[in-house]
């Protein structure tokens, strides 16, 4: 039978319906879809997809189990290397990773690995078998370790260390767990109920999670070693959002994407005054930047009643860093793209200090820059003004400075990132490991998970060598 050239479609809420709710856009495979898609996998002897996966999920093996309708077994297979499959199946950029390497993808569309991963995780959850499928770990632990931050890097590192036999404590500075998975990624891309279940799975593995502790401030790292912890992983994530660098960037109504999304996702500002944290959306919103975070901010704005939402991006559509799927979703929902356009100034009301408009300039693309992308060059005299109530700056962020400030002996890179050995996550301080955005600057969820995974191995080797195990 010839292979189906196209990926099996996944149902989505219609754009008209979904801009009125925060429910998940993509509805996931039904069993028949999953079986159809699993049949497209060639079961390669040397699977390149596994190499493309930062956490090396045994992709052909789990897909084979799906084809055999052994969904619990498939879930266990994924969880051997990935403790957050329902999250990854939803937010990983598979098109740049496993699916990019898929042999089927050479001539046809690649196997929908992400969609299958999500199906397996959802099937396990819906069957109520997560508890039953959880591996029983020995009560006697090798040593105690601390993870600073419960975002994707920290959760992965914690899960792996728990599986390796460690007594793991995660300290989270916010009142809720999940880091960017909770405050950043909106409900319609990653329902928080699903995140809660994946985090609860780690608790089932014996991981302790303590909120309201900012490692470096509440407890200094040297103090943790004194308390008998053998190693520390820093997964503190990104911090210090970058602003536009133009006059007016501090006017009321200019938010960083982090602030905007945190108000909405973590603090539930859309329920104000039932909840206590407000957010002002206004009727016209400009989101500056074109990554996934920018798409999330734009799409939240529409759902919260904005009439016009613009993405303002200095390069062309081709260079937009967001996932193609998310760009399409945003466009379908009515987000308008102002491409080759850069902010020059945010204009505000003199008296109230609130945003009223944004002055922008048109660009053309010049020679490629250091990133390999063609450099945007402003066209003199092409400035114009767009009226605006809200401006969201989604142009990235630098690594959080708090832990490095509290530990001067940690070697930092040019951008304030903690320098690590990429292979094992070790920093310049023995016993201290780091990974995720704090080490690399803003990147993807799965890249952070990959770093958490390598660090878990590194910490295990370090502790074993110190204990002569």
């Amino acid at each position, binding site marked *: 039978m010839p292979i189906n050239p196209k990926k099996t479609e996944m149902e989505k809420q219609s754009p008209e319906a979904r801009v009125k709710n925060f429910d998940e856009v993509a509805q996931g495979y039904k069993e028949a879809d999953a079986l159809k898609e699993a049949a497209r996998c060639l079961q390669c002897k040397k699977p390149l997809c596994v190499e493309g996966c930062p956490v090396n999920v045994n992709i052909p093996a789990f897909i084979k189990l799906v084809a055999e309708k052994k969904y619990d077994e498939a879930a266990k297979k994924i969880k051997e290397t990935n403790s957050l499959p329902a999250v990854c199946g939803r937010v990983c950029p598979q098109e740049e990773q496993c699916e990019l390497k898929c042999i089927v993808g050479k001539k046809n569309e690649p196997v929908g690995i992400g969609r299958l991963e999500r199906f397996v995780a959802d099937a396990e959850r819906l069957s109520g078998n997560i508890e039953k499928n959880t591996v029983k770990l020995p009560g006697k632990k090798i040593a105690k370790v601390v993870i600073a931050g419960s975002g994707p890097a920290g959760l992965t590192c914690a899960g792996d260390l728990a599986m390796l036999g460690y007594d793991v404590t995660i300290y989270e*500075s*916010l*009142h809720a767990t999940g880091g960017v998975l909770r*405050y950043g990624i909106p409900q319609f891309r990653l329902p928080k109920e699903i995140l809660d279940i994946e985090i609860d799975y780690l608790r089932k593995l014996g991981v302790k999670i303590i*909120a*309201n*502790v*900012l490692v470096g*401030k*509440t*407890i*200094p790292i040297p103090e943790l070693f004194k308390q008998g912890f053998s190693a520390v992983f820093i997964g503190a*994530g*990104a*911090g*210090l*959002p970058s*602003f536009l660098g133009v006059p007016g*960037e*501090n*006017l*009321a*109504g200019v*938010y*960083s994407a*982090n*602030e905007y999304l*945190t*108000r909405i996702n973590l*603090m*539930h500002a859309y*329920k*104000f*005054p*039932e*909840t*206590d*944290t*407000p957010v*002002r959306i206004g009727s016209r919103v400009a989101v500056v930047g074109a990554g996934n975070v920018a798409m999330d901010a734009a799409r939240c704005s529409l759902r919260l009643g904005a009439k016009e939402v613009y993405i303002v991006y200095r390069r062309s559509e081709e260079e937009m860093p967001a996932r193609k799927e998310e760009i399409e979703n945003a466009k379908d929902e009515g987000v308008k793209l102002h491409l080759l356009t850069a902010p020059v100034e945010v204009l505000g009301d003199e008296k*109230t*200090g*609130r945003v009223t408009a944004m002055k922008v300039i048109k660009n053309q693309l010049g020679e490629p820059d250091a990133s390999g992308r063609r450099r945007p060059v402003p066209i003199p005299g092409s400035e114009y003004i767009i009226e605006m109530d809200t401006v969201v700056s989604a142009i990235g962020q630098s690594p*959080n*400075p*708090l832990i490095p400030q509290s530990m001067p002996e940690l070697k930092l890179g040019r951008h304030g990132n903690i320098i690590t050995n990429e292979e094992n996550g070790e920093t310049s301080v023995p016993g201290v490991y780091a990974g995720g955005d704090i080490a690399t600057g803003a990147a993807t969820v799965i890249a952070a998970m990959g770093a958490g995974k390598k660090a878990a191995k590194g910490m295990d080797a370090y502790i074993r060598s110190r204990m002569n195990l």
Partner: protein
Amino acid sequence: MYRILKRKDVSPTVKLIEVEAPLIAASAKSGQFVVLRLKEGGERIPLTIADKDKNRGTVTIVFQVVGKTTMELAAFKEGDELKDLLGPLGKATDFAAAKNIVCVAGGVGIAEIYPEVKELHEEGKKVTTIIGARNKALLFFEEELIKVSSAFYVTTDDGTAGRKGFVSEVLKELLEKDKTIDLVVAVGPVIMMKVVSELTKNYQVRTLVSLNPIMLDATGMCGACRVTVGGKTLFGCVDGPSFDGHQVDFNGLMKRLNQFKDEEKNSAEIYKLKCPECR
């Protein structure tokens, strides 16, 4: 967790709570703050740590009742627990090598300046304290401050206590008389800190102000608390809360503080309707 061991009315609008928080008590330094949340759905608000007791494992917070969350907190009783408490946050105030310091405080800033005056006094520095309020009923901590101050002045807007007038008037006289003053620390309403900073600029005396911008995570992630200092965008939670008063754009700060004024008013009104004793 985070149980209130002691609660007292410091003035009609200012309340004090002592909260169980051993980790914070162990590492807090003067000038630092906490972020608290009272309940599910509650907002995160920053409040200065007014005192700490390592042995008891507690921190003391003094707050002014200004909006819904502080009204609710004012209704908490001894034995009640806060839902969340994070700290200590921000940098400790850096007094550098100053020897002759004037500490100026207004309103709830009186509570916030107390640990700093105490610390400077314990280090053997000369500390002159000036506190001010609208009227006598709103003053507090006088006795505590007298004990740790080399000289102590009180002003009220209506003259019901101390001298009638503003803290800045006393400060001006001191700056005229004593040319060895090498640092002024001001904590209180933004307008007061602005006036003090403008005054000390004329005398070229280094001035630290403690800013209270709107915060959300308060760990450097969201940037809600950004302020313009010396033309640069800095973060209240990570770079502050203490800044060089001669460099701060106070007008910009006031506008950012008013960002959600309507929402805050609305929220407080709704709360008052539901809560009879708040009316």
